[in-house]
């Protein structure tokens, strides 16, 4: 009995450590483009706001799936909340754009323009990390 319980606890510990509860900002419908230079950021971003762009051309922000034009309303609310919290925070906030690889790039540009009009100026285009194909092993 004891060895079995040892093993089972090992397994539980393994899966517990690897479990990932940060899926709130990872929508599975979005297939991200991949890039070998997309490295996870060293430090967490300042007050990030994630906007997903689906291949159909709609934007997902939080629980809402809206046409891109409606983002102005949602982002204005976010901006005002950030301004109320702290004056400098709002312009430092990063908009994370998770665009589907099939999406038209013009839509990404439109989202960025809307964000700029609201007052945000830092963007992060998110991509899936891809090992360099030729020398994948030598990465440290």
């Amino acid at each position: 009995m004891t060895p079995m319980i040892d093993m089972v606890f090992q397994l539980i510990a393994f899966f517990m450590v690897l479990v990932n509860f940060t899926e709130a900002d990872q929508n599975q419908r979005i297939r991200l483009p991949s890039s070998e230079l997309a490295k996870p950021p060293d430090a967490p971003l300042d007050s990030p706001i994630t906007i997903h762009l689906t291949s159909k051309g709609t934007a997902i922000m939080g629980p809402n799936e809206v046409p891109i034009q409606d983002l102005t309303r949602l982002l204005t609310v976010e901006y005002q909340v950030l301004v109320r919290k702290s004056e400098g925070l709002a312009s430092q906030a990063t908009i994370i754009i998770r665009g589907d690889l099939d999406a038209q790039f013009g839509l990404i540009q439109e989202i960025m323009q809307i964000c700029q009009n609201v007052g945000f100026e830092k963007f992060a285009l998110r991509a899936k990390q891809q090992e360099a194909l030729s020398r994948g092993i030598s990465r440290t």
Partner: protein
Amino acid sequence: MKIRNTGRDEETIGLQMTSMIDIVFLLLVFFVMTFKIIAPEGDFNVKMPAQAAQGTPDPTAMPPIKIRITAAENGRVAGIKFADVPVSNLAELRTKVREVVGDHPGPGSLESTEIEFDCDYNLRYEYVIQAMTAVSGYVQDGQVVKLVEKIKFTPPRKQL
């Protein structure tokens, strides 16, 4: 009076294993079910203040290098132009960028160079990321060599 407790001493008091194993297996099943391999994600940082807030541009700053990417009907890349010079593919684009910024170690024009992407409206996002990858660096012997970090985009072109 003599207390009889014959037979009781031999009984070992064990843990209630069955219920513990039930719970432990439930936990194990839960974690196995929720286990999902997710590829790590990274960001390309783009800093683009609104046009109105820019004011007068810094006269000492170099104007951004324009990269024009045109799209075919189906969203594929039809042509790439690096500062009005056509290039055939992304590898050649990277070579051009390396010629301009000079990726030798030490202070160079890395920090001052800025690239502006001017893409067609219907270009697929995937190709834009590929182009951004080409200009922002390359991987050599497992090390990332950075080229251009300042990237911005033109306002969207009108959809035809």
